[in-house]
């Protein structure tokens, strides 16, 4: 390390004078496990209902489609409803490029500040909190989740998990960025009043794909 | 008294507390009366202070001196009962921590702590008086709750912080007031928020303390209560003192004073810092 290598040693030395461990010390034994969270209403019984109600509570919306082929129509309908029907270009996850998008163009690229709509593909969803889990990759640029005004997130129902704990076994490796997103961006920094669309998307819409097949 | 209640008997050392001794003897008389009504013999050993002011000021040496004195004064009794959450908590919770390096005293303090109770805690949790259906105060309004003093008053309650958070005293005084006096508390929104007394805090930081007691009073006013009750004289003197200074007619009493009362006419005055009517 170019930086702070002396500091590194002196900080660690001071810590070791307390922990009593030396540099080759073995991994400590952990003695806890995370309890299963218990709620008034058991959220594990019906994951879709739990997920939806959590999402709605934070101003996120949700619709369901039977399969991936139904996505473009669902996106079109949603954009019309949201007053965004004149949007020409959609920023998308690479896995969605091959769908029949009609007149709209789709691109897999880094988002810029003028981009209006993204259609991203979630790695998983978490019912306990109404959260979608995004993994960054060459197919899935992080900026797509944050810069456009409208973020539509595609989530396979088969990937709807009960808790964050169920996610870890599914992740083969940590992506550069693992983003947990729960609703549109918001702030309450002025007088505790919630305003949506602080820096990230103002509109946050999840499309749940019932039968995602092998896609 | 039912069999469960009868199982508890013995000598009680009344832990008067400095503030009741000096400013409000009727609180200690009321406590003594309530305990005697349950068949206990109540003794008031010569006492000064349990050491809480020194403890909260950070002076552990002085606190230990007073704690040892207190233990010696009180350890002969079967029970020690105080009409104060913060004073009983001092003995019950904090004495133990003081004697980390004096195991003999730590043991003695622990034995005393096990027998020390805040008044409402003792009456309800230890004696289980309300479960027995026995009146706390047989001589007041024997014809049922409708005759009890103050049954028509609007009464609110301030939960003192030490009693509430260190001893878990919240339902006991309310339950006793309901069972024995027919009093339903009209709750204020901020009953569990500190009134700004805090022992020496109120004189070290008088402006902040005044803001806090004003916030407390806002909550009291919202309830339109005629009477404020509580279980710790420090808080009650602080709130009553501010109420009176700002011209409020709300009267302030320790809950024990109401519990022990036979008729409204027996009141010695119209509350803490109130205008005397005798």
């Amino acid at each position, binding site marked *: 390390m170019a930086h702070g290598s002396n500091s590194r040693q002196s900080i660690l030395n001071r810590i070791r004078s307390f922990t009593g461990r030396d540099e080759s010390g073995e991994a*400590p034994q952990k003695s806890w496990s995370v309890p299963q969270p218990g709620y008034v209403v058991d959220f594990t019984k019906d994951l879709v209902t739990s997920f939806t109600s959590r999402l709605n509570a934070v101003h996120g919306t949700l619709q369901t489609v039977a399969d991936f082929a139904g996505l473009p129509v669902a996106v079109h309908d949603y954009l019309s409803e949201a007053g965004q029907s004149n949007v020409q270009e959609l920023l998308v996850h690479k896995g969605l490029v091959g769908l029949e998008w009609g007149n709209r163009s789709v691109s897999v690229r880094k988002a810029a500040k003028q981009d209006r709509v993204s259609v991203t593909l979630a790695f998983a969803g978490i019912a306990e909190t109404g959260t979608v889990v995004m993994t960054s990759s060459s197919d899935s640029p992080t900026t797509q989740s944050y810069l456009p005004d409208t973020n539509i997130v595609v989530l396979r129902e088969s990937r709807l998990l009960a808790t964050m704990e169920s996610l*870890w076994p599914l992740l083969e490796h940590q992506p550069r960025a693992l983003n947990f997103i729960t609703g549109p961006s918001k702030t309450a920094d002025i007088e505790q009043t919630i305003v949506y669309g602080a820096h990230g998307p103002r509109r946050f819409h999840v499309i749940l794909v019932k039968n995602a097949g092998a896609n | 008294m039912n069999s469960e209640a009868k199982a508890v008997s013995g000598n009680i050392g009344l832990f008067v507390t400095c503030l009741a001794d000096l400013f409000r003897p009727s609180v200690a008389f009321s406590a003594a009366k309530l305990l005697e009504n349950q068949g206990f013999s109540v003794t008031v050993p010569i006492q000064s202070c349990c050491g809480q002011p020194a403890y909260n000021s950070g002076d552990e040496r002085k606190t230990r001196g007073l704690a040892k004195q207190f233990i010696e004064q009180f350890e002969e009794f079967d029970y020690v009962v105080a009409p104060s959450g913060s004073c009983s908590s001092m003995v019950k919770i904090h004495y133990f921590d003081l004697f980390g390096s004096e195991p003999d005293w730590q043991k003695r303090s622990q034995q005393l702590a096990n027998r020390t109770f805040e008044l409402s805690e003792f009456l309800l949790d230890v004696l289980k008086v309300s479960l027995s259906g026995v009146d706390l105060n047989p001589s007041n309004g024997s014809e049922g709750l409708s005759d009890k003093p103050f049954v028509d008053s609007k009464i609110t309650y301030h939960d003192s912080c030490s009693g509430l958070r260190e001893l878990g005293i919240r339902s006991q005084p309310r339950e006793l007031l309901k069972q024995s006096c027919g009093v339903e508390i009209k709750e204020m929104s901020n009953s569990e928020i500190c009134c700004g007394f805090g022992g020496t805090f109120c004189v070290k930081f008088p402006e902040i303390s005044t803001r806090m007691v004003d916030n407390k009073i806002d909550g009291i006013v919202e309830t339109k209560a005629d009477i404020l009750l509580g279980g710790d004289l420090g808080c009650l003197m602080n709130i009553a003192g501010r109420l009176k200074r700002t011209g409020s007619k709300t009267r302030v009493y320790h809950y024990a004073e109401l519990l022990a009362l036979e008729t409204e006419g027996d009141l010695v005055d119209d509350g803490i810092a109130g205008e005397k009517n005798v």
Partner: protein
Amino acid sequence: MEVLTHNFKPAAKKALLDKDLSAAMGRAESGFVDTRRKVTDELLNFEEFRTLGRDVKNHTLANLDYYLELFERNVIAQGGHVHWAKNGEEANRIVLDICKKADARKIIKGKSMVSEEAGTNAALERQGYEVIETDLGEYIIQLAGETPSHIIAPAVHKSKKAVTELFDRYHAPMGYETVTEHEAIVDQARQILRDHFCSADVGITGGNFLVAETGSVAIVTNEGNGDLTSCLPKVHIVTTSIEKVIPDMEALGGFLRLLARSATGQITSVYTTLFNGPKRDKDIDGPEEFHVVLLDNGRSEILGSEYQDILRCIRCGACLNHCPVYTSIGGHAYGWVYPGPMGSVLTPILVGRENAGDLPNACTLNGRCGTVCPVKIPLPSLLRKHRSDLVKAGSQGAVQKGMLSFWYVLARRPVLYGVLMRAFKTVLSLFALLDKAGQRGRIKTLPGASAWTSSRDLPAPGKSTFQALWKTAQSASNESEK
């Protein structure tokens, strides 16, 4: 950040006179407290999670060297850099160095209390960098030239009107119109900050948790500014501190359930992100460089001390929101980065107890903070411990010391105490006579007790002390029994 803790009393008095501040603090208190209660009640085993939070932090602190090194190895394995800084000055040198190498001009920032602690903004600005805070609250106070008054809601003390005026002053010259409503204010900040996000060279964020097992830095926000700060500029620097490390993802899940609930009364924050190093080979976006600056600044010396429990703090702010002193005076009066109960414990250790003696004393020991702390830090006990250390160091005030000693001498002599209390009672009764005739229940002024009587009446004592009255009554009843 400049230390003004010695100025607590006058600053608090001034704050109490500020009506806008009082209104703002009143709003914040009820907002935070009520929302927190709802979501902590809904999670039935919230208490179990608090216990978990305490235990995991204790375990991590007991093995802090192991977990820090594990974290470091894993960050490096992912292509990131880890820098260790003994103090704020060194942390700033490290940040400056990275910015210089990156040939940076504009630096955007997500909220980082550690960078406030180090005074990073000022250090960067002194070297000519343009530094822009992007959390809306931080942006507002940056414009105002102030410091955060709350650890998660930095502009909680500002009214909407004050923000309108600030925006008018700074944005009007850029051609923006006056905004008076919440939505319009937020939208204007959004537009301006977007330009900065997309043109900045370096992004600096804090780190809420450092996951050792994976080398991940976790940040939690609602606005999304932390993510934009991290994924748009070519360099991402995390300024954080050594006690933020936790063992693994399992622990993270536990802490995330505690943090949002305790902080903002949310079930989860809108954005929780784990950063795992710089942009990878085929990635389309993300920073080219990823740096973590680990600040110590006195924390390693707290390990093993009587104050170690404060190192569990996850900076949720619940103790502030539930502190009746904090909500009366706001955060600035505390005079340094961390206000409220956790600050009154931490600040005297980090800046020197002799400079901050008022902080642990400015507390009624009402205990509410301790009951809401998500990692069960015994805040009232630690505040009392500070008082005890102040007494041991002889730094309590002479008047206080004198009075306490006098009272102690008396209280240790119960018989004399009784006599003097009765005499004191007589004196007090005389002062009660100064009140209106016939209304002698209280004392309006009392020499030497103006701190009480300036705003409150003092109840007048009765005829004698309880102990004397009781003795008389007992002998009378013994007499009559004879």
